[in-house]
């Protein structure tokens, strides 16, 4: 009898522990916000399902008409992260992507949703891949202070843009039509177009120089854009960023303002 009680107690504890682990994996934590996957599911059905699909595999009803294609959450591969290439994103990375949207894609900014709702969506998106239960996200990459922008820095950046072969995808003038374009695909085999740096001041994963620095460090997983963590030192990355900023500087100030309308971003 005593053995039965002990076994029952152990089973209950085991069930409770596994429930706790599972529910913790289905939560999201962004600052003080705790997202709930169950609530997130209802929001996903309302806002996301038509692009990302009911199974989160990026095969929603609208997906055939969208370029670039919606993210496949089941692969747990995300473009915009603060963590190293190949690692899982932080909850806050997913939250920021939902909030900011992805410029020049079908993904709008969902900032009009409540903060709690965005946190709930993050929690639900994580349920599409077991990776979020099996692995821990990477550590955020360090971003050093930006040195002053100067003509020398821009010149060095221009040289790096050539020597690091950035031009082969983004083009010599940064318009995104380099010689490699025809062969570029994402991790699902869909053709993908390099970013046009001349189109404005916003980028896929943000609009500040720090955002771009982070992209150079982490790469955009799932796309041909690699991490330059090993290939360039921090000063070189800042140089490249200073150069890239000049590619859209031929625009007038008012044109830049129009391009960066920040509508719901």
């Amino acid at each position: 009898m005593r053995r039965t009680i002990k076994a029952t107690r152990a089973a209950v504890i085991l069930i409770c522990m596994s429930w706790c682990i599972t529910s913790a994996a289905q939560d999201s934590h962004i600052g003080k916000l705790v997202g709930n996957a169950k609530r997130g599911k209802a929001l996903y059905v309302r806002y996301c399902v038509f692009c990302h699909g009911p199974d989160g595999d990026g095969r929603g009803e609208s997906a055939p008409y969208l370029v670039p294609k919606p993210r496949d959450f089941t692969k747990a591969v995300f473009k915009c992260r603060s963590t190293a290439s190949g690692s899982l994103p932080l909850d806050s990375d997913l939250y920021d992507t939902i909030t900011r949207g992805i410029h020049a894609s079908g993904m709008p900014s969902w900032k009009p949703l409540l903060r709690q709702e965005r946190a709930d969506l993050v929690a639900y998106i994580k349920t599409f891949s077991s990776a979020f239960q099996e692995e821990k996200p990477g550590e955020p990459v360090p971003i050093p202070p930006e040195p002053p922008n100067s003509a020398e820095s821009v010149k060095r950046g221009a040289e790096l843009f050539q020597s690091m072969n950035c031009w082969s995808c983004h083009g010599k003038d940064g318009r995104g039509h380099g010689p490699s374009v025809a062969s570029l695909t994402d991790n699902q085999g869909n053709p993908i177009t390099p970013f046009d740096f001349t189109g404005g001041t916003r980028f896929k994963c943000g609009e500040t120089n720090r955002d771009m620095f982070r992209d150079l460090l982490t790469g955009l997983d799932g796309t041909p854009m690699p991490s330059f963590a090993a290939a360039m030192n921090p000063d070189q990355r800042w140089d490249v960023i200073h150069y890239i900023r000049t590619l859209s500087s031929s625009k007038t100030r008012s044109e830049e303002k129009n391009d960066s309308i920040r509508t719901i971003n």
Partner: protein
Amino acid sequence: MGIGTMKKMAMQCLILATLCAYAPLAHGIPAFARKYGLPCSACHEAWPMLNNFGQTFKDNGYQLGNGRDAPIYQDPSYWPIMFRTTPLWHRESNNRQAIDVVPGNAASGQFESVVTTSGFDLQGVDVITAGTLYKNISFFIQPFIGNNSIAVSQAWARLDNLAGSHWLNLKLGKFELDEPISQERSLILNNTGGAYQNYFFTPPGDNNFFAGIGFPQLGVELLGHSDNDNTRYSVAVVSDSNGSTGLPSNQAYDVYANFNQSFEAPWFGRQQVGVYGYFGESPTYFQTSGGNPIPGTGTGNRSFYRLGAYGHWYVNKFDFYTFYLHGYDNVFLGNSVPSNQPARLPVGAVAPVWNGGFVEGHYNPTPRWIAIGKYELNRMSREANPNIRGNLGNLDTWTVGYRWYPIMSPRAGLAWTQEYSRIINAGTAPLSGKDDIRNSFLMGFDFDF
């Protein structure tokens, strides 16, 4: 043919009609959903009522801000157009209709009786074309095709994000005022409860040319909002023409302003509070030719205003609109007396004043279904003419209903709706002066593509 066979055939016809109603929708493409690949539910709490994402999209000049808004990014075959119509069956009853004793003989005297009508019907066709003419220049054109007429419900162009700021947007044309809760996007369609009575209320016997904030108006609007649309304002200067073209009244201008602020309440959701006001002048008489008023020559303007406050409260899957209005019309307007003939005012005449409001609640457990309940009232606190009964014009309206969305896609929207409304209009029965009571029941499809 037996009754059983006829019933069977009727059932088959009904099923066929239902299938036919579905069939064309699969090929329809709503303007914005097609452009962005988003479903109705992304922008609508329950179509056509907007949620905050949809409101933000609208406030941004129909732009998502994802770098794909300008027409240059669209497939050349894209045409930003949408059709909406509502085939339905409805039943209307009025408890005190004035009826001639001998039909066709107006001199035979009248009596009051209940009149009930019912049948299949169609609420016309809305054609909406809207979008961006260029980056940060948006437009909206809405012709309405009625049974025997075509009218332009709205037509405007808007300069968005002036000086790169969300706070400066300028709209010119005929447009719906930035109402606390949109009349154009009402979830209720029936004759009795479909209109927000407070938006259109004018006291009995009042000849104010202005017919209510529920009508689209002609003018210019400056509006702006924060990044997330939590803070919004709108100021409009409109002609005192009730939205009618051709300057039918005079050259007076009215001003409408609305301000609202939203905030996030833990555990409950979004909450919104706002204030609004409409201030204007209306002519009390016209220049005449042969005794007939000459359009555009209205004069003897007298003032009026409508102002109030409102809130929109979410409690998880429930949400409630609360709305309050305080109305005032000048004594000459209230008594339909030209201001150049003050002697014609009844003894003791005063400016009419009234208060009204409504509570509209929704239960929206899924994007595919919404239950609706509304109670609206209006109370005269001061009649223009002290010799008439004190509660003449008081209104009480109840509505219950639901809308079900069997399909929801980026291509088309279809709702099945059933609703019932009842209105009691105090003291307005045409002969007895008793309460006039009307009931409406409606069911049918509301679809767009």
